[in-house]
């Protein structure tokens, strides 16, 4: 569940016998036994009801009822007033940002953004930012984009002000790190749908509640990456500083923080991306802006929903590229400034803000509008183009459909359905023991115990059957995502051209709201689980690509040279040296892939995947809080088990090599 984890340097020593051969055979043996049990006792042993804690959902519902009654009571407790006060504070913060962006006028906002990007990020950042503002204007979504930008400024700012300090503590203290990791896991895996109702009860609706639910999801990467940065500072540097007599505070502020500054800024960057992926969900409780454009567009005007999605992506990419540029610039390794250059930079800063002030003044004098004028947008034209494309997608007589429909049917009939039937109908005890045994073989005793405990918990929560339904789809989706991700990752590592094309594609897939691109897939493959699986694969494979690409690229150059010197062809170098040595990165890719697939379970449920995702959605949308939370806990349990198994298998592999 590490958002960014280092890929450990790989020692170029291979044991004679491939590590996996034995394990693969053993795993196959277990699966064969499970299959025999399934053939013998299919449907005879569903999870026994007396092992279910059915009262839990009811207790949770009672808790919710109590909470709502207390909240709306005449003699409301002071605690609620504090929550409401905080929400009002955030509401006001967001509204203040929003009004500021509008007060500057659209000309002023564009110029301000561009100049600030130019000063702190450089030319490329400035081009990205100005292009983003131009596209908001052309799409006719200026007002909504500014609302979302204001929401994001508040959400990211608050997430960082909580996440970075926690990350610093987690970087310094192992005990704190261990304590906080499961909390961060839960924050990332428990679907937002499960906690929207309590958030609304405590914080009401509106920008404040939207920011708070966004923070729950965006804080973990800030904590994790900051901790990683602090831990990445070389030990001898810290020791040197300590031996020179620095206090702990001095070591932190003069050594550890400056040296991890680049990583922390990378954390800022990830926090932004995570926050932007919440725009649509935050819209459900009053976030407004582009989130509303997407949700209401989906049922009244899908073309408009697509434009809204594009605006979110553009915003994400502009923010990503400019924070990355800022991060690169502040790298201490490249930052030995002379006094003259310092002076010049200070002057540039003054010029930037003077330029902004002048532009705003001029804009006010010439009466520029707060919102980019509706008459000058290309919205109508764009909507028509998108609609043409949608009409094509929705036409069941096209060539594309004649390919996608059978493909979807194939996936259902030959991949998902058999696996689903196997997992749902097999006796519960063979499945439980089977997954634990596989965990034992693949990664060791502790993960096996965790897996056993977590799958037992799923059963006790009364979620065995829907969880098996979800599990089968998670396995298929992760398999496909890893397959695609490894292939593209290796290609990207070998060819810069491929890498250049893939990067923006990955960004789009990570930030475009899934519902926007998944509804067209419902038209193309109108078959049960397929759209959900497509959504999961599209969301998860970019992470695999990124990790695999980095892993393959990081293989020690001297190893590659040695292989070439012995006369290995490029293909041999790739197949026999680079990919085996990047195995660790591949396993990390599998790990990330699973976590991301689990992150889309609810969305998948909303496009026909059923299982736990549908139950979580039902929890929010029918007000069955208990049911939704219980189903979310089952997702969390599954996530923890799969995470520990794949993470530990990396570790055991590493030990095997060393």
């Amino acid at each position, binding site marked *: 569940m590490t958002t960014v984890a280092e890929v450990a340097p790989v020692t170029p020593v291979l044991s004679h016998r491939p590590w996996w051969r034995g394990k693969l055979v053993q795993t196959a043996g277990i699966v064969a036994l499970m299959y025999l049990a399934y053939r013998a006792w299919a449907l005879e042993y569903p999870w026994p009801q007396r092992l279910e804690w059915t009262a839990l959902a009811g207790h949770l519902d009672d808790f919710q009822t109590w909470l709502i009654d207390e909240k709306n009571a005449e003699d409301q407790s002071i605690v609620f007033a504090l929550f409401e006060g905080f929400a009002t504070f955030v509401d006001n913060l967001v509204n*203040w940002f929003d009004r500021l962006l509008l007060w500057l006028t659209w000309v002023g906002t564009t110029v301000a953004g561009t100049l600030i990007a130019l000063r702190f990020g450089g030319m490329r950042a400035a081009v990205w930012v100005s292009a983003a503002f131009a596209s908001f204007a052309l799409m006719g979504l200026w007002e909504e984009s500014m609302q979302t930008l204001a929401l994001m400024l508040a959400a990211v700012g608050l997430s960082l002000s909580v996440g970075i300090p926690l990350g610093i503590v987690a970087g310094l203290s192992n005990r704190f790190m261990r304590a906080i990791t499961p909390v961060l896991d839960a924050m990332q895996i428990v679907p937002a749908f499960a906690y929207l109702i309590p958030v609304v009860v405590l914080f*009401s*609706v509106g920008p404040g509640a939207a920011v708070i639910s966004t923070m729950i999801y965006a804080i973990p990467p800030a904590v994790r990456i900051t901790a990683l940065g602090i831990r990445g500072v070389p030990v001898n540097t810290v020791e040197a500083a300590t031996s020179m007599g620095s206090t702990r505070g001095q070591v932190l502020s003069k050594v550890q923080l400056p040296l991890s500054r680049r990583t922390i800024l990378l954390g800022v960057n990830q926090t932004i991306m995570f926050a932007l992926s919440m725009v649509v969900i935050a819209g459900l409780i009053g976030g407004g802006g582009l989130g509303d454009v997407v949700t209401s567009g989906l049922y009244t005007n899908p073309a408009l929903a697509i434009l809204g999605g594009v605006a979110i992506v553009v915003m994400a990419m502009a923010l990503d590229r400019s924070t990355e540029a800022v991060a690169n610039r502040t790298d201490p390794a490249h930052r030995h400034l002379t006094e003259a250059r310092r002076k010049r930079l200070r002057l540039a800063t003054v010029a930037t803000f003077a330029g902004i002030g002048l532009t705003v003044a001029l804009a006010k004098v010439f009466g520029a509008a707060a919102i980019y004028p509706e008459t000058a947008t290309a919205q109508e034209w764009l909507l028509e183009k998108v609609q043409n494309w949608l009409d094509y997608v929705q036409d069941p007589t096209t060539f594309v459909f004649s390919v996608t429909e059978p493909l979807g049917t194939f996936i259902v009939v030959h991949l998902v359905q058999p696996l689903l039937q196997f997992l749902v109908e097999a006796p519960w005890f063979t499945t439980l023991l089977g997954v634990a045994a596989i965990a034992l073989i693949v990664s060791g005793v502790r993960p096996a115990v965790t897996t056993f405990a977590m799958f037992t918990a799923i059963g006790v929560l009364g979620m065995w059957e829907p969880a098996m339904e979800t599990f089968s789809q998670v396995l298929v989706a992760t398999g496909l995502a890893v397959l695609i991700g490894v292939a593209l990752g290796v290609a990207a590592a070998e060819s810069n051209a491929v890498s250049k094309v893939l990067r923006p594609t990955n960004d789009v897939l990570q930030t475009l709201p899934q519902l926007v691109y998944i509804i067209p897939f419902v038209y193309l493959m109108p078959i049960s689980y397929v759209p959900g699986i497509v959504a999961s694969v599209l969301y998860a494979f970019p992470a695999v690509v990124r990790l695999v690409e980095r892993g393959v690229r990081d293989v020690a150059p001297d190893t590659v040279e040695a292989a070439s010197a012995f006369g290995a062809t490029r293909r041999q170098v790739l197949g026999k040296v680079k990919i085996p040595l990047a195995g660790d990165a591949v396993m990390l890719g599998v790990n990330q892939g699973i976590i991301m697939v689990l992150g889309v379970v609810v969305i998948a449920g909303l496009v026909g995947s059923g299982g736990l995702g549908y139950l979580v959605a039902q929890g929010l949308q029918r007000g069955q809080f208990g049911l939704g939370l219980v189903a979310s806990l089952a997702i969390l349990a599954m996530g923890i088990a799969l995470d520990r198994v794949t993470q530990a298998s990396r570790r055991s592999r590493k030990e095997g090599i060393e």
Partner: protein
Amino acid sequence: MRKAGSVDNKEGSMSKKVGARLTLLIGASLVAVIGLVSSGSALGGAGQSCGTVTLNEYGWPGSTANTYVAKYVLEKNLGCTVKITKITEVPSYQAMADGKVDAVLEDWGYPDQFKQYVTKQKTVAYVGSNGLLGHIGWFIPKYLLKQYPQFKTWKGLKGKESVFKTPESGSQGTFLGGDPSFQQKDKELIEALGLDFKHVTVGGYSAEVARVSQLIKQRKAVIFYWWTPEYLNAYLNLVEVQLPPRFKGCNDVGGAGGDVKQYRCRYASVPLKKLFSKEFAQSGSPAVKVLRKFKWPNNEAQNLVGKWITVDKLKPDKAAEKWVKANKAWVNAWLK
């Protein structure tokens, strides 16, 4: 006047001051106190002028039609400023209790929420029907009746379930279940009627529309959970399959377990509700009187506006204007 998120506009000027001060004051606790004061002051005085009315729009075209027709009338005739929020169903009850949403014009009934907020706490007020009769049922495309006229009633489905076979259902027929936000009892009903259907969930509203309309375009056999009023019914030419008559104590809320016989009847037809926040209901705003009378003549009227918005791509405010202008006499009755 710009939309200012969901903060009530009554506190607009106050929050502006707070906002300006914020740059200086980072101490959250202090601001929290100010926030309290400002939200407290918002509860005060509500005069006879209309001011701002916040209507909440839900995720289906009919709700868009209600909201924009009401908005048009309130803004044109009373000079109100109407703000539209898009908060999803269950949280919108709490939004009304908090006074952040003034009114919801089409509620399909959430028994637990209704009991808690309307009956018990009285923080949300039920103010009558919006003139629509909501009805859930099993629907099929009309072309199926040509080949299988017996599909008019559920009895005709018996033994013919395999007509609805899909790759995922094996030898059974596929029944497409509805959006997670709607009341459903189809699993129980299928069992109680002894039909050989596999119940498959198709996900949310948009996904169900996509799936069903694609299958209908291919003229396939499809049976699914659907409802009226809904603009798509005429557009896709759907007919309802008759289910067994209702009996006393028949249950429409599935998933509770127990004997499936208690579900063996068609879904009830329910008048769709209008809900106000208690604060708004007591505010004396002229908008309250109008919205209390707000009513559609029939389901078809709303379907028409829904169709203008979704199929003909008319902007919602234009669609509302068109309908109000064509139905002057009806709308004038709300204003008396």
